[in-house]
């Protein structure tokens, strides 16, 4: 499979920012995920061809980072932080609740491709522990019940764009601190929302 023209244009624009094309490897891996829903072998080959590496080299980079999902990934990737602050405040129960509600075990994806559930290392919201991310959009102060409700909502509402602020309002609790003006753009898939990658979209 080859990339859509849109994705290819994005790739070229990103490559043009760097003196050496291979520096664009990591951003392009997100484009590849956006294109196929997760990082496929074809995707890695496409990246390799554009940045002048071999697929083996691209695979070497991709396999180091947990955020490059090389397995099938659900439309909503729910990451529950289980590092120390969150763990002390009950993250394991949150994870269990999320798994129960979605029917998806830690590290797994459901049949329909709706949910992937994973535990994550510290996501930088220790002050608002326990913290959860959906498609890398942050929700803080999440109790097991709220975790369940969040997943139920995702299943019912099927938001096209996942927005941290919206989820925080609906399902969050104590935040680490005031993060500033609310973001209006969110994530369109299980990869971080970032305009140049085409993975961000206005929500609500």
């Amino acid at each position, binding site marked *: 499979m080859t990339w859509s023209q849109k994705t290819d244009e994005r790739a070229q624009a990103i490559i043009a920012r760097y003196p050496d094309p291979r520096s664009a490897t990591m951003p392009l891996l997100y484009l590849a995920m956006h294109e196929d829903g997760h990082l496929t*072998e074809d995707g890695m*080959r496409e990246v390799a061809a554009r940045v002048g590496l*071999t697929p083996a*080299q691209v*695979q*070497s980079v991709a*396999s*180091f980072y947990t955020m490059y999902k090389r397995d099938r990934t659900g439309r909503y990737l729910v990451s529950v932080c289980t590092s120390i602050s969150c763990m002390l405040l009950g993250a394991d129960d949150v994870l269990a609740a999320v798994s129960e509600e979605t029917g998806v075990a830690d590290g797994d994806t459901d049949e329909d491709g709706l949910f992937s559930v994973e535990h994550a290392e510290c996501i930088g919201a220790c002050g608002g522990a326990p913290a959860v991310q959906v498609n890398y959009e942050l929700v803080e102060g999440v109790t097991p019940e709220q975790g369940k409700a969040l997943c139920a909502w995702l299943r019912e509402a099927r938001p096209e764009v996942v927005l941290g602020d919206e989820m925080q309002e609906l399902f969050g609790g104590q935040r680490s601190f005031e993060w500033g003006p609310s973001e209006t753009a969110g994530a369109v898939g299980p990869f971080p929302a970032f305009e140049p990658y085409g993975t961000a979209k206005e929500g609500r």
Partner: protein
Amino acid sequence: MSDEATPGMVKITIDGREMQVPAGDLLIAAAEKAGTYIPRFCWHSRMKPVGLCRMCLVEVEGPRGTMLTTSCTMQVNDGMVVHTESDVVKKAQEGVLEFLLINHPLDCPVCDKGGECPLQDQTVSFGPGESRFVEEKRHFEKPIPISDLVLLDRERCILCARCTRFSEEISGDPLIEFVERGSGTQVLTFPDEPFASYFSGNTVQICPVGALTATAYRFRARPWDLQAAESTCPHCSVGCRISVQSSQNQVLRFQGVDVDSTNQGWLCDKGRFGFEYLNSPDRLSTPKMAGDDGLQEASWIDALDAAASGLMSIIDEHGPGAVAGIGGARGTNEEAYAFGKFLRSVVGTGHLDAQIGDGLEPRLLAAPADRGLIGDLEKASSILVWGPDLKEELPVLYLRVRRAATELGAKLVVAHPRRTGLDDVATHTLRYRPGAGQDLLRRLAAGEGDAGAALAALKEGPTVVITGLAGLTEGPDLAEAVAAFGRDLPDATVLPVARRSNVFGALDMGVSPALLPGRASAVDDGARATLSGHWGADVPDGSGRDTAGIIEGLEAGAIRAVVLLGADPAVDFPDPARASAALAGAELIVAIDMFESVSTSMATVVFPALGFTETEGTVTNLEGRVQKVSRLLPGPGGARPSWEILEDVATRMGGSIGATSAGVIATEIEKVAPAYAGATWDALNTAFGRDGIVVPTADATQPIEYVPVDRPSAPVQRDLVLHLARVLYDGGTTVQRGLSLAKLAAEPAVYITPQDAHRLGVADGSAVRLSGGNGSAELTARFDDSLTPGAVYLPFNLGISVGSGLEVELEALA
């Protein structure tokens, strides 16, 4: 020792010993040169240091006390004080080894590397003796093939990255890399992209454990059972140094030997695994003679009688000029010399050639003015490669050029009809349509248009110009003109190349109508007279035919008998069908070979010859470097050395070439061949050792010095022209008679630009008919956008030939 350090040197102290070492050296290298071996796994003297394994820790004294540091990443400094055997260092080494062994399976008893394994050896010398690790080790599927030639056992891997660094830094095909970095780090290929590198075998040799093993050697022997002898790779004219290793009269492997002058330790896979043909059950072991039912086994006496009487009756009836000889480039100088002497002095013919219609002007190959050495690449500011795709034809020379262009910063200009292996490291790539090379050369010489920048680069000397035949449909004029252009550059040396193993040696031995032994000209009456004095026989004048001329002679009936020495013109001549038909018309073919071939199938008599590893002698590489080849094995029962066979035929013809042993021939060469004076076996075995001797030596004379000529060839204006060029793994005997390499030969296909394909209604992968100067064939078309429109490319010797004419036609088949 005086207090002042010699310029370029610094003074350091290692374990209380003061010494001077070259400034800029890495500590680990400096210590080794000075006699202190610091253990290591990841560091390799031919690659950049990475400081990964920590085995090379030493203590270095500094202003804030001593500090443990990796000696492979530390440059020596004046006044440096180093401890390599202190308690702290020992403790560190024990720690490193204990960690490295945590996940190591310790399956030494069933591991190929056992007995020559740095991990084993260094654990014994520097390890802790016992491990405190009782937990489960990492487990991986044991061994997985990562290519047709190499297997990977990830449990044994100590993650030193030698293999991955080799593939990126040295060979430039990084098809293996670390993946799952973290507790799961392992070496791996991309799922459907095997480690199909022409150089993959080197990783097996440099892997410091048994993680990488070669299919060709796996479980065949234990290192302590191997007999070894140093020799020279017989597969191409680079002449890489190898160690031939055998057990129970079978060659089991070739390993690269590190010499500065040629291969720097590396080998290509054709060289490394191209030993299997020697053990082939198809080796000839008795003479054969043509019978009603093809070749039949014959006794030596009958075969020798038949060859001698056959040659004599043709000489009687038609004169010695009706006999010709082709070959000699596959064996040693001694065999080539015997061949030339047999033809010129016993038969009395001047028709002889070691090139098979696929070479350059013999005097250019033998004695070009301003000839360069491979080593010149190390100090070159710019390099021009205009000739064969070095990666396909002279692989280790490709590595040397690649190193110059990457590590050493030389500007590289590559001119070829299509993409070559060096293009990705070239500063300028110039492409041309076969037949239009002269136009490009004119533009380059004038610095016109896009060639201007390339010319500017080439004017920065020192420059090395590597030139040879880019393809077989083009005559030698272009390479010659490129050599002439090269000589006109301000500070350039010229390295003309031809591929066939010992072709340079055979030409130097006079197996060419134009040359007498020792780089004398065959048209030089004085040289002929001197030689006939030595030989006690007349030496024919220099008007003999080369291989193309011999084929013509066969067609015209002027040549009636051919003696073949390890040559198969019916396959190797650029137009094989033509050569085959010509040979079929010969009255007599006497062949000396290791195998039956298309050409020997038409022979009257075939003699079984000993080959590489079975005969001692010398060979000469493309620089004119004479090196020894060693005899380690007896060879198949009935086979004999070629020179001995020739001597026996000569005796029956009432003559002699005086060949009583290869050593005797070597002594005669040294005496008779002017440029080879001083290049004796003794000198090669002792004083010069591994680097060989570049001829002519200081006190030898070189009778000819050939100045290349700029001979413009007529420009061609055709619709579709053919680029016909060799690939590394082809239909050649040494590839096809070995289990490992035979399966690597590519499927034949014709390559075409998408533009032409579109015009002709051809799709990628579709069937087409290619018609050329001599025949046509149906085959698959593949797109190649690196060709110039109007050109198609057909790999040579993959079983398809349409002749060697430049002009071709291509039509789509339904």
